[in-house]
């Protein structure tokens, strides 16, 4: 395993909760952390998250400074008092510079795919040797 890679992206640390945070947490107490696969290429980083039951309209992805936040409620679960997760919530701290405007996300069949293009300064470049 390549440890260095983990610097690129790190799970956000829990900080002292504000009241807002506490309220949000109460709402999410039936949420779960989605399992993710993450890979990095020369030009982008891609996050794939298993979020079954989520519809596009209920998926919220925000980039708050260097923190990527994924949050979604799963359709119908709370209403049905389901024993399955009522939604998903996860935060990541981004250690690499990304092209914030270029971030895209899609959702298909309960899998969320987030593409974070690396900023030009972070991209791997081959140096031509004369």
């Amino acid at each position, binding site marked *: 395993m390549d440890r260095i890679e983990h610097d*690129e992206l790190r799970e956000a640390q829990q900080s002292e909760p504000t009241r807002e945070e506490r309220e949000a947490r109460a709402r999410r107490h039936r949420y779960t952390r989605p399992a993710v*696969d993450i890979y990095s290429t020369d030009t982008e980083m891609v996050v794939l998250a298993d979020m079954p039951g989520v*519809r596009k309209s209920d998926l919220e992805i925000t980039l708050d400074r260097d923190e990527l936040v994924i949050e979604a409620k799963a359709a119908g679960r709370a209403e049905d008092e389901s024993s399955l997760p009522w939604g998903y919530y996860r935060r990541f701290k981004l250690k690499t510079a990304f092209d914030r405007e270029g971030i895209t996300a899609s959702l298909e*069949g309960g899998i969320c795919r987030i593409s974070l293009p690396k900023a030009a300064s972070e991209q791997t470049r081959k140096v031509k040797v004369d």
Partner: protein
Amino acid sequence: MENESDSKASGRGALAEFKDAVTSLFGQVTSLVPDFGLGREFPRHELRVEDEECRVLVELPGFKREEIDVSVAGRTLTVSGQRPRFEPPESGRMLRSERPSGDFELVVRLPAEVDALAVVAQMRDGILDARLPKSSGRGRSIEVEETSGGEEGSGAMPWEEGSEPKAQDDESGADDG
């Protein structure tokens, strides 16, 4: 979950008995074939028992309906399939790999006899929704009306419309193919 203590202890039979007791209490048991990476339960599921039907919801993100086998035998619903390991593009390096992959088999004990031929299972947003109408007869599939009338759960059928694979003259519960 108790697998380790299970194999250590001589009381394997006692544990099996306990498991049976739990099963009869809660009417369901889950089995996974391989141990998925994080020891997560995969796939997660929920059994709902309603007046007219049992309903089983199974979390199967990324699956198409035809990639999943759903079968009913007696009071057992089996859902199985295979999820290939995710491979990044050639130039990609995996930083995290948490999502489960491999073969899975979910076995759900149903608390009531169901009509195997009338089972309707569909995929939506990565959730398999299997509806299993309870049968009034004992073990014999009952004749099913064509569901063109607007009953609560009408709507999309997993089979092509007009080709309902319902009772002809067969009486044995078969899987839904």
